[in-house]
């Protein structure tokens, strides 16, 4: 009898304590794996230099983070989500329908996407069009009137001035934000203005929806999805000298003595060129804050202020040492002002500028 009581009591305690977990004293962050290194760096700084608990950061990818973030407004949902792209209007709608009414958007810096190769190769300059021809599943035929399955196996088939070198890409898989960004900035950027693709879309808008902004990457073994682990791509490039790898700037910077980066449209991926927007394959990094949590979770304001401090995101700041490319000064000030005023992100914001 006594033992039975103890057993019942202990089960009840576990259940009760699970319920109490709603009140927490630790910031919960989810989202992009690209922003993850920066966010966890700041989180650690907060934990080491204050008495706040170190925030917990889960790397779920931008899309996965949005889904968790927009699940509801309660304290059992994340406080902040990181994203390597802007929030989509669909995601804001989801958030609003689940009761997340007030969100502040903060831009923290840039990330350049590097087309890297083994540094035993000579310098190479590629245009976005050449990259598109190398990776698209379907490309315009010789006469430019119709689409054919991508026939290119060597770079000099695309442009006679390029070397006779086999086309091989090791890049991120479909789940990755880096791949989304590559598709947007290189492929969609061009194909949405190319009649040979868009004509098909206009001919049958239902069936040929993908040709509106064509971004299908070839699957005949030329583009090898190499998993989310960018170190793996670096290893592949060291073995396979003809290959190119696609990954974020920080991995390139860390391996700078054994890799070199292709210039895109004549611009090399230097921090200054990425920051100014001159290097074409670069994107902004964001995080989104649930305003209703700011006063309920201890340390939220401190965390965000520490993140947006010049010592972190400024020129020569700690985050630039680990590969974040700083925003221009005016935009850093704008980010700080948006957080100070808890400026709410609106549908018009997300639709207006890129």
């Amino acid at each position, binding site marked *: 009898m006594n033992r039975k009581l103890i057993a019942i009591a202990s089960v009840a305690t*576990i*259940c009760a*304590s*699970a*319920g*109490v*977990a709603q009140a*927490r004293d*630790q910031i*919960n962050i989810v989202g992009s794996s690209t922003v*993850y*290194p920066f966010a*966890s*760096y700041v*989180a*650690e*700084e907060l*934990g*080491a*230099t*204050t*008495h706040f*608990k*170190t925030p*917990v*950061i*889960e*790397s*779920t990818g931008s899309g996965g983070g949005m889904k968790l973030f927009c699940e509801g407004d309660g304290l*059992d949902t994340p406080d902040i989500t990181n994203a390597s792209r802007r929030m989509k209007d669909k995601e804001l709608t989801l958030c609003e329908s689940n009761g997340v009414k007030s969100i502040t958007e903060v831009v923290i810096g840039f990330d350049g996407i590097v087309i890297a190769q083994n540094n035993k190769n000579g310098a190479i300059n590629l245009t976005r069009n050449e990259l598109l021809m190398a990776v698209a599943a379907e490309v315009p035929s010789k006469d430019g009137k119709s689409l054919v399955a991508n026939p290119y196996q060597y770079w000099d088939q695309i442009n006679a001035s390029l070397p006779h070198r086999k086309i091989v890409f090791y890049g991120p898989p479909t789940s990755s934000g880096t791949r989304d960004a590559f598709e947007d900035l290189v492929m969609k950027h061009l194909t949405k203005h190319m009649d040979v693709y868009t004509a098909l879309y206009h001919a049958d808008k239902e069936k040929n929806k993908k040709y509106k902004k064509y971004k299908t990457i070839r699957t005949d073994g030329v583009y090898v999805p190499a998993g*989310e*682990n*960018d*170190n793996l791509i670096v290893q592949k490039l060291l073995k396979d000298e003809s290959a190119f790898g696609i990954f*974020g700037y*920080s*991995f390139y*910077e*860390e*391996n700078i*003595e054994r890799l070199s980066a292709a210039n895109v449209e004549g611009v090399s991926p230097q921090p200054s060129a990425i920051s100014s927007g001159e290097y074409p394959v670069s994107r902004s990094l964001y995080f989104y804050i649930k305003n209703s949590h700011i006063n309920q979770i201890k340390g939220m304001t401190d965390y965000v202020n520490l993140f947006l401090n010049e010592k972190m995101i400024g020129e020569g700041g*700690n985050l630039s040492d*680990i*590969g974040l490319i700083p925003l221009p000064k005016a935009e850093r000030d704008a980010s700080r002002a948006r957080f100070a005023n808890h400026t709410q992100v609106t549908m018009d914001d997300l639709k207006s500028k890129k």
Partner: protein
Amino acid sequence: MSESILSQSSAHQKRFRAEKRFKALSMMALLLAASFLVFFFYDIISKGASAMQQAEVLVDVHYNQESLDNYNKAVESPINKLVSRGYLRTLPLKMKDHPELLGTTVQEWVVLDSDIDQYLKGKPNRLKAKHKKLVDELVTVGAIQLNFNSGFFTNGDSKMPELAGIKSATIGSLYLLFITMIVALPIGVMTALYLEEYAPDNRLTQVIEVNINNLAAIPSILFGLLGLAIFISFFGTPRSSALTGGLTLALMTLPVIIISARAALRAVPGSIREAAVGLGASRWQTIWHHVLPLAFPGILTGSIIGLAQAMGETAPLLIIGMMAYVPDSPGGFLDAATVLPAQIYTWTGESIRAYSERAAAGILVLLAILLSLNGLAVWLRKRFETRW
């Protein structure tokens, strides 16, 4: 007849050759497996051994008002450029918490930046030439040396490789293992007892048996989805917590424990049960006094192997949010936690190359724990096994 056995007939020789070939093939298979293992150990040990040492410098740390305002002033220039920023930044808070330190100067061994650590170990680094010179000078006077890396065992995860350690992940693993054990062991053993000792052999129990065997072979990531649906979505246990992780792993380990416990119970001869019943013992007394003690070593062995498997598991934990950055050790079962294999996985994905030796060292620690768990299982079996 006897002649044909002794004679070297061609059929006989053929059979003999086939026998030799078969033996050689099976030996080659063994050699291949062994060489993979040797390669793996060589690779991991050669990569991970260097993480057991960490470059440190013997300096005067000044605790005063100036270093309270700017922590870089706590160590004199230019050595402060070599010291890990992760160490310096903690000083102001330390002084605020211990005001009696103010105005004192303490000489101590201080952790250096990972670039210096990697430079001393002859690995790729981004140390500037002038700093290399300074490091070389300090090494010759003995102010900089590679000391035993105790921080690896006493620190949690860090974004600075020189400070990254396995403490929080190890404690997380222990919490998870504890939950898994107290949930899976009693339920598993009771299930096995019912199925072996009480249940009638009918269609229903056969279906249950097939399903249990099936569950043991299910890809572990599915248990993550199950855990997400049952514990997080339905019972509302906190995401990333040790409780959720432990319960999920308990689901995964249950079939293994049930199967091994049933095998152990079945190995207890029926004559023992008959003798007990014959002397007037009740069913419960038979099981409690005779069957269970005899089957116990077998049950324990199976359970330890099941728990060791759970300890190395990552896939189901990914789904319930345990693959996260959790540098603080969990203080309770509801706190966010991470586990050793998840920690290793996170380190292999880091862009900074100094993490690769930490990851390898983490693998060595995990291997050591798993080996000792399996060793314990073997020892228990040898020690307590009863032969009939």
